[in-house]
């Protein structure tokens, strides 16, 4: 389309008489103009259905065809700005409506800069004052006027009552149309507004008041929801008193036992508070309300494993797998539950039962690694039983690659509690195989080994023997090219394993580690955290003041880069440090009463007490 053609299209739409008269009678510009004008008029009158109908009559090859996208974009205002912009994107750079499209885009984005006066007037005719802050009083007046005429308009009552939170002065005007506002409703809106304004103390006080109000009125579900909402607020604010949150959750589930997420959160809270029995009890109760819920089954199975109830864990996981057959995590858990149960049975000499568990485990082992691990366990149990003279691990060798196989064998030897005489040859062999100086290492193997260590640790296996062999190997792993998140995940596990030196090695092997003393530590806050906390052996009380300074810098860094999780973790460590300082025991010697000692001495030696006092406190020569 030439520039002149574009001018003609815009001129026709602008109603330019000179241009209209110059158009031949059979020109598409003249033929299709009535439909285009009809669509524009319908839009101006607010008759959106007529807009669509008129636009559908404009032929596809008409010079006005892009009017469809322009008006569609206008109809998207203000609810669907994204869809509006997408419609405008369909108007190409060569379209005569390119200029008007930019005007409508300004309307949708609220960016009026660069618009010419008439375009600006057009936008303001639709949007009013663009970019200005919404004024509650004005909105209230508009809606109130509508409510007086059509009080039953859907959503109008709710919108007006919500506005009272921003404009409380409208209460009496509202009451004249819809009646007095319930005081609980005002309390609710005020609590929400306080939350929106980040006044959390005020919000919590009001939610508390509303909770009691609902409970007294017998509105149990509302009361439960308010309690649960309070839990969410406290959690977001990293509230440190977990026992308070636990009580709120107890209230929630007792008022509404059908609130599944509250049960799950309560169980998780018990776990954090290391109340495993309580956790099990909560999940058993939750299962009576949600026997077919995958999330509840999953949490209950995990809790059962954590307290060593493998049979129960297996039963729950099987139920879960019926509902969700491709749940990989659940399948793995079932496999490990059977393997752990097999070890438990073998250790207590119940080899037949152990064999049955192995058989069950085999059914859930899918990949070569899992199958290899089951094979190793099976052979070692057969060896313990005396069925084989020396395990050969032939099948496992096919399935597992060295050195991971050796690591698995050593791990199983330790977790099955082989007597030292029998386990030593395995560990010696392992040390030979895991010759870290000669070995090519990759990140996957390191990660797998750390996972295996975690598993053994969870079973209560003494790690010292195994660590003697694995430590140099893991130490070598520090030189690998770990991504930040990979490194942090590994550090988290090593920290839980209490391998503090390795934690420090990995935290310091990051490329950002400072080279010279006094230079700013540019490592991610998580790495600084692990480095410092590992240095103190996980004991906040053992931190030095220079450690505290480093942590304070890391805290500031975490806040700057908005790593809230790490900021809150570092903050907690610093709090624990402060607490450890304030509750530190008395100074050596404090609390000893010297007079009591002298009295005792006087009785034993027969020397008068006054003389002893004089001797001790005045040095016998009258000088103090």
């Amino acid at each position, binding site marked *: 389309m030439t520039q002149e053609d574009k001018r003609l299209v815009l001129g026709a739409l602008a109603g330019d008489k000179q241009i209209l008269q110059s158009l031949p009678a059979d020109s598409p510009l003249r033929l299709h103009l009535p439909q285009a004008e009809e669509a524009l008029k319908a839009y101006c009158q607010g008759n959106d259905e007529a807009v669509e109908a008129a636009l559908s009559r404009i032929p596809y090859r008409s010079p006005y065809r892009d009017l469809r996208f322009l008006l569609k974009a206008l109809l998207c205002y203000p609810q669907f700005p994204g869809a509006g912009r997408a419609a405008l994107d369909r108007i190409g750079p060569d379209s005569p409506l390119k200029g008007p499209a930019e005007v409508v885009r300004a309307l949708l984005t609220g960016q009026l800069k660069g618009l010419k006066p008439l375009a600006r007037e057009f936008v303001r*005719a639709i949007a009013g004052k663009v970019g200005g802050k919404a004024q509650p009083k004005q909105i209230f007046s508009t809606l109130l006027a509508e409510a007086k005429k059509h009080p039953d308009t859907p959503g109008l009552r709710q919108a007006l009552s919500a506005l009272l939170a921003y404009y409380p002065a409208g209460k009496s005007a509202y009451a004249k149309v819809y009646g007095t506002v319930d005081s609980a409703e005002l309390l609710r809106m005020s609590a929400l507004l306080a939350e929106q304004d980040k006044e959390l103390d005020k919000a919590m006080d009001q939610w508390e008041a509303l909770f009691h109000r609902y409970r007294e009125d017998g509105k149990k579900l509302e009361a439960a929801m308010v309690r649960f909402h309070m839990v969410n607020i406290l959690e977001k604010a990293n509230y440190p008193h977990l026992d308070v949150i636990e009580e709120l959750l107890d209230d929630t589930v007792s008022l509404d036992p059908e609130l599944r997420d509250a049960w799950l959160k309560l169980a998780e809270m018990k776990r954090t508070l290391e109340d495993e029995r309580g956790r099990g009890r909560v999940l058993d109760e939750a299962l009576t309300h949600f026997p077919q819920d995958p999330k509840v089954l999953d949490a209950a199975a995990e809790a059962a494993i954590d307290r060593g109830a493998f049979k129960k864990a297996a039963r729950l996981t099987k139920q879960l797998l019926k509902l969700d057959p491709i749940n990989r995590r659940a399948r793995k858990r079932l496999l490990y539950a059977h393997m752990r149960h097999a070890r438990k049975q073998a250790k207590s000499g119940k080899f037949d039962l152990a064999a049955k568990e192995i058989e069950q485990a085999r059914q859930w082992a899918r990949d070569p690694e899992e199958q290899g691990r089951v094979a190793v366990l099976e052979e070692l149990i057969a060896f313990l039983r005396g069925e084989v003279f020396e395990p050969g691990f032939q099948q496992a060798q096919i399935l597992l690659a060295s050195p991971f196989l050796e690591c698995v064998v050593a791990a199983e030897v330790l977790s099955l509690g082989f007597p030292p005489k029998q386990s030593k040859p395995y560990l010696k062999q392992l040390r030979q195989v895991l010759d870290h100086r000669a070995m090519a290492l990759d990140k996957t193997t390191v990660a797998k080994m750390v996972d295996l260590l975690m598993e053994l640790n969870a079973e209560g296996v003494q790690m010292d023997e195994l660590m003697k062999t694995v430590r140099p190997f893991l130490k070598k792993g520090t030189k690998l090219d770990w991504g930040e998140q990979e490194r942090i995940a590994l550090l988290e596990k090593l920290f839980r394993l209490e391998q503090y030196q390795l934690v420090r090695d990995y935290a310091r092997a990051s490329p950002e580690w400072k080279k010279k003393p006094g230079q700013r530590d540019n490592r991610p806050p998580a790495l600084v955290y692990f480095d410092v906390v590992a240095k103190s052996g996980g004991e906040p009380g053992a931190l030095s003041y220079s450690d505290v300074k480093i942590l304070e810098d890391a805290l500031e860094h975490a806040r700057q880069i908005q790593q809230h999780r790490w900021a809150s973790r570092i903050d907690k460590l610093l709090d624990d440090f402060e607490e450890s300082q304030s509750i530190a025991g008395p100074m050596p010697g404090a609390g000893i009463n010297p007079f009591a000692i002298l009295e005792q001495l006087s009785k034993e030696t027969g020397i008068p007490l006054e003389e002893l006092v004089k001797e001790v406190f005045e040095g016998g020569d009258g000088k103090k």
Partner: protein
Amino acid sequence: MNRSPFEILGVAPEADDEEIRRAYLQLVQKFPPDREPERFRRIREAYDTLKDARSRMKYKLFHLPELEDLKAFAYRLHPRRPTLAQFRKMFAECMKDVR
């Protein structure tokens, strides 16, 4: 600027599970995700917010519309439209830029 989930699904605040589901399915047929992804996403979110009694209660108890949303609601009740003359003037102004 968001419409309330009740408005999006076109149901009354007192609507029950069945009514809400029916309204949702009708809207999904009208605005399938491949043709109207943004609108579908909003419909889906609205349905998730209202699909059962507890979700609805949660929404009613803890949702406070922002002022901008209330302003948009007022706009929908009284949509402002330009006059045809303002439209034409805007086209005329754009025409001057085409050389």
